[in-house]
């Protein structure tokens, strides 16, 4: 028996199916993901203007709540919020409240007292944004900027935008994700998005120690041998390998990993001639990718960064829109 559970999508969607939080891609429809990509496309144009601002979040306060440090993700969220005309507060919680023993619940109560409208949350523990979404007062939107090994939905969506820009479609594509799948929130969100958007095959390529148990249940095929796995690929996504994986007896050495799973020119030559190379960054040159590939003509790594701002603008404006719609309907029903 399973006790009735609020499913993740019921937490993050309004009654009429709009986003009110953005926690995971699990359970979101192809229409909604396409809507996010289309909205992001329209914001790319904003980034090309001399005055890079739209007034969608004017008067709103967005708090970047980073319990785990991150330069790149935080700065793209900050830029995205500013281009939407929001006021932005950056809090590096990893070095303040929690180190003084304050619980996450208490930290949140204090921040809510500052009348914030949106929390962008990065946390080392899987499910932390769900916990926050379940405990904040109604009207505050939660955007997941990466939680533990669980999800990094904005990263996956910017990757989808990049793929769509270069391939023009998802149908029929063969996409591989290579490297540390086990610890990767990015991979989980990517696999989910690629399946929802209808690619032909998602392949994960990794040694047994870097794969979660029952990996196939994520909706992918598993390949241990990278040379086999590179065949017929339209897109190859490399993941960052953390140095500490050598300590936990997961891998013998960086050298062996690079030889077996590093993307170099000879392995890339096994894929389709127009196969694009992606990486969520920051890259470890010579560990998971050869410099000549990372900087080569098929690399779209820097497009990904640019797209990150547009995707985050799209998600933030859509979630805030959902919250406003809900607030209006609550007022209509005479609730506060």
């Amino acid at each position, binding site marked *: *028996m*399973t*006790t*009735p*559970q*609020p*499913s*993740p999508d019921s*937490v993050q969607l309004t009654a009429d199916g709009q986003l009110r939080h953005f926690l995971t891609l*699990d359970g979101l429809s192809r229409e909604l993901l396409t809507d996010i990509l289309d909205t992001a496309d329209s914001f790319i144009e904003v980034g090309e203007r001399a005055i890079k601002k739209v007034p969608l979040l004017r008067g709103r306060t967005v708090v970047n709540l980073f319990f785990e440090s991150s330069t790149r993700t935080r700065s793209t969220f900050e830029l995205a919020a500013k281009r939407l005309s929001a006021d932005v507060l950056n809090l590096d919680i990893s070095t303040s409240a929690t180190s003084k023993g304050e*619980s*996450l*619940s208490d930290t949140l109560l204090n921040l809510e007292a500052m009348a914030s409208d949106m929390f962008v949350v990065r*946390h080392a*523990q*899987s*499910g*932390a944004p*769900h*916990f926050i979404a379940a*405990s904040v007062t109604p009207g505050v939107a939660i955007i997941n900027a990466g*939680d*533990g*090994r*669980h*999800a990094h939905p904005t990263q996956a969506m910017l990757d989808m935008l990049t793929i769509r820009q270069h391939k023009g479609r998802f149908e029929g594509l063969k996409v591989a994700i290579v490297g540390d799948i086990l610890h990767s*929130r990015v991979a*989980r969100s990517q696999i989910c998005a690629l399946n929802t958007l209808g690619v032909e095959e998602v392949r994960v390529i990794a040694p047994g120690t870097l794969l*979660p*148990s*029952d*990996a196939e*249940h*994520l909706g992918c095929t598993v390949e241990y041998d990278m040379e086999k796995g590179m065949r017929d690929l339209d897109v190859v996504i490399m993941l960052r390998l953390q140095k500490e994986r050598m300590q936990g007896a997961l891998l013998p050495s960086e050298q062996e990993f690079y030889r077996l799973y590093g993307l170099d020119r000879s392995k890339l030559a096994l894929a389709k001639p127009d196969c694009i190379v992606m990486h969520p960054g920051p890259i470890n040159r010579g560990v998971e990718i050869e410099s000549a590939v990372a900087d080569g003509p098929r690399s779209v790594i820097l497009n990904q960064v640019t797209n990150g701002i547009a995707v985050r603008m799209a998600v933030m404006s859509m979630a805030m829109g959902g919250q406003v719609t809900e607030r209006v309907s609550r007022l209509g029903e005479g609730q506060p």
Partner: protein
Amino acid sequence: MSVSSQPSRVKIVGGTLLLPDGQLQAGPLLIADGHISAVGAAAEGAGDATVINAEGCIVSPGLVDLWCNLREPGDGQKGNITSETRAAAHGGFTTVCASPETSPVNDSGAVTHLIRDVSGSRSPIRVLPIGATTKGLEGELLSDMAGLVRAGCVALANGRGGFRDARVLHRAMAYARTFGITLMLHPENQALAADGYAHDGRITTRLGLLGIPEVAETTAVMEMLLLAEETGVRLHLAQISCGRSVQMIAEARQRGVNVTADVAMHQLLLTEEALSGFDSRFHVRPPLRSEADRQGLLEGVRTGVIGAIVSAHQPHDTAAKQAPLAATEPGLSSVESVLSMGLMLVERQELSLSVLLQRLTAGPAAVLGRKAALEAGAIADICVFAPQERWLADSASLVSAGHHVPVVNHALHGVVRLTMVGGRTAWPSGYP
């Protein structure tokens, strides 16, 4: 239906009795001077006695719990002996074994005496302390086992503390064997469990949770079975969670190993899917496992390889469960819902009522070398419950200080009408 005046003779009429052979049979039960004096036809027309009408109710021996956290001494914010033994009485339990996971740990006769003294004055039911196998439950140095037993411990356990290595475990068994003490061990290979907090499987893979693989339990079960066979210790494996463990225990028993086992009720009802919304209530240890494991455990309960079902009651304060899943504390507040959860299994035809009640009464009692049976001469520890009546486990009805119950917002079948300990009312309004 409380028995306020506690007369020397009480007759329970109109109910269905669970007889020692597992039969359910309508008939009266006569209690005199704290003992059962007649069962069924023999109790008819017994003259002057206070009559309790148990129409529509099951009359069972009082439930016996082999693992209950009473939180005293040391964890007053989560509960205490008064609140948790009253909760157990509400759940139909007449006897609970108190886990040694207290603060300080019950690893000395002094702590055992404290638990017994406090229980003696504040508990409406019987409390049997379980001592620690190693000092501080740290898995390194042996506790004063003989002293713990002399002070009143009915078994020794190591809880989730485990053992530093197989040599400490081996010696703990050999030493316990000296005195014929039962070791009640939670099998978990700590290196394989590592920082995990959920069953390593589909849900951990999807949600990116840190998993505890099945082999963390099964390798420990195998190690414990082999060492128990070699030392001849009386081994009880506590709260197993894997179907594979059931098979291994059955094989060991076939070749004559003196081993018994129990399972927590929530393992029979729930699976890993319960965590799919990151609900911290279902962060339990061992973790809720797959549907195949649940089926294997149910089969073990039906065949008797698993002789006892426990509550594994772990009351918590709100803060302990108010955090991202990994940062929460494991455990459910279950002692008041165990019987109702069991009745859900009966309703779904996964267990018979008779087997359910035996695994909650005679089964656990036998692990302790005791009896729990409705037969003439037995101590009158009795539970009377209405299986069709409904209740809601919420803050209005719960007695435990912990409110993280397994089933919420869903009316449960099975209301305990009367819990009687030695012929005295322990629930409702039982208070010594």
